[in-house]
């Protein structure tokens, strides 16, 4: 067999299984929306908020399961409620936003774990699947739900792009120019919650932060405009989730962590070798050493 054929064979072999087709489809969609929506978190320095929302979806998911409602819906509602409570604590008391996030998300997370461990004894529901993802278990219904969420999220970002750009760059200037910034912020929270919910099956709530932040951060070191960060980030997200799936298939790794390791490796490459900001190459080569020198105490002092 020629090399080309071997490569093609390697590529197509997993695709003959319906479960791999389904999980790859979901992984690709999630890779795209996480990178796009996560770019907003990165530029607004709200990475921790992504973490907070993702940990907060658990109790909603459990309650929805108990009530027999779609767990995506329950998870989404819990994610949104957590952002409302965080905002409420932050504006109504001198508590800083990051402290509010820490308090709220660990409380929600604890409640979620308690609920799920209680109900998983008598039900077919596994806490680990939500914590670390269970992409090989995606159903046709999951593919459909993910596609609907992905379409909604991408449509919203496309239609509101110029408003969200202004708002995320200069919230005061945008508000003073007459944009409804409260609404834009709420919309952004909804997009993040939707994205987290769609990603649960792929990487789980603990590792989803990586898919939200790393692709955008990798792209940010390479290109200068937000829409370019999003497009390149989406490509990086897709590359990571697909390679992670193949790694998981051939080397028998857990798929969520495999995806996260790929995207982290891509970030490391960009960090070291980006022509614009790379530590080892690029215009400011040598800067780490100069920086180090300035950090050292000078002799006279």
């Amino acid at each position: 067999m020629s090399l080309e054929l071997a490569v093609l064979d390697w590529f197509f072999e997993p695709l003959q299984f319906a479960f791999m087709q389904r999980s790859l489809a979901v992984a690709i969609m999630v890779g795209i929306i996480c990178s796009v929506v996560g770019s907003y978190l990165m530029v607004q320095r709200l990475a921790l908020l992504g973490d907070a929302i993702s940990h907060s979806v658990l109790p909603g998911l459990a309650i929805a399961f108990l009530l027999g409602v779609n767990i995506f819906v329950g998870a989404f509602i819990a994610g949104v409620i957590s952002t409302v409570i965080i905002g409420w604590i932050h504006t109504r008391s001198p508590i800083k936003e990051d402290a509010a996030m820490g308090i709220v998300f660990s409380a929600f997370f604890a409640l979620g774990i308690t609920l799920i461990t209680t109900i998983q004894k008598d039900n077919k529901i596994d806490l680990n699947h939500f914590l670390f993802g269970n992409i090989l278990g995606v159903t046709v219904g999951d593919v459909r739900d993910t596609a609907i969420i992905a379409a909604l999220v991408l449509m919203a970002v496309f239609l509101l792009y110029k408003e969200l750009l202004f708002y995320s760059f200069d919230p005061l200037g945008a508000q003073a120019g007459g944009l409804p910034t409260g609404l834009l912020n709420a919309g952004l929270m909804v997009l993040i919650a939707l994205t987290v919910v769609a990603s649960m099956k792929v990487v789980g709530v603990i590792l989803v932060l990586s898919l939200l932040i790393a692709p955008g951060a990798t792209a940010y070191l390479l290109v200068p405009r937000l829409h370019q960060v999003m497009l390149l980030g989406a490509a990086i997200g897709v590359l990571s989730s697909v390679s992670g799936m193949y790694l998981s298939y051939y080397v028998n790794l857990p798929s969520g962590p495999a995806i996260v390791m790929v995207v982290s490796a891509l970030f490391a490459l960009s960090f070291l070798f980006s022509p614009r900001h790379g530590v080892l190459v690029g215009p400011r080569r040598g800067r780490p050493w100069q920086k180090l020198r300035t950090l050292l105490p000078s002799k006279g002092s």
Partner: protein
Amino acid sequence: MATSPKIIVDHLSVNYRDVQALRNVNLTVRPGKMVGIFGPNGAGKSTLIKAMLGLMPVVTGRVTYGDDTLAHQLDRVAYVPQRSQIDWTFPATVWDVVMMGRVKKTGWFNRFSASSRQLATAALERVGMLEFRDRPIGALSGGQQQRVFLARALAQEAEIFCFDEPFVGVDQKTETVLFNIFRELAQAGKIVMVINHDLGESITNFDQLILLNKELIAAGPRDWVLTRDNMTRAYGGHVGFFGHVA
């Protein structure tokens, strides 16, 4: 421009939680004049502008422009925040920032029109930054960044312009560019309010002054506000400037 409306600030008080930032401010800002807002650090200058525009809640008071509350007419306002409020590492180019000035007028779901792009180009030209249109904003000097924000304000085609400390970190050349454009805006009948705290020579560029220190010390024509007594009340005993004081 006697027909253009003026801004009337009526009994405005603002708190940050339990700290009072402004107490019972009453003043009128008229179009066609260059208005400077002065006062020491923490005097409430930024707070005054934010409260006037409804960007933060007020305890009491009302700010009107024409027949309605100013906060209801923000599409007539261009506001450039203090430099420190902006994240200069944000992934945007000069062009992206200037086009932000066209977002509100363009409207939801619409794409920027050709005339919006022309307005943005003209605004960049006017501040002398057209050749930098594709630069990331982080790769500009402080003065260049400030000029880009002025271009964004110009592209907004506003009636009311508010600048919070536009001269910080700016060289003489940019300062002259900014003052010239502020003057042109005022002469075109706009309302121009500039927060500043340089009490040097440049103060003579302003027609009207608002002097604050937690409360309104004085507001009105420059020479009328710049008295020794007012300056002492605003800045305490240690103000090194009296050259232009009447």
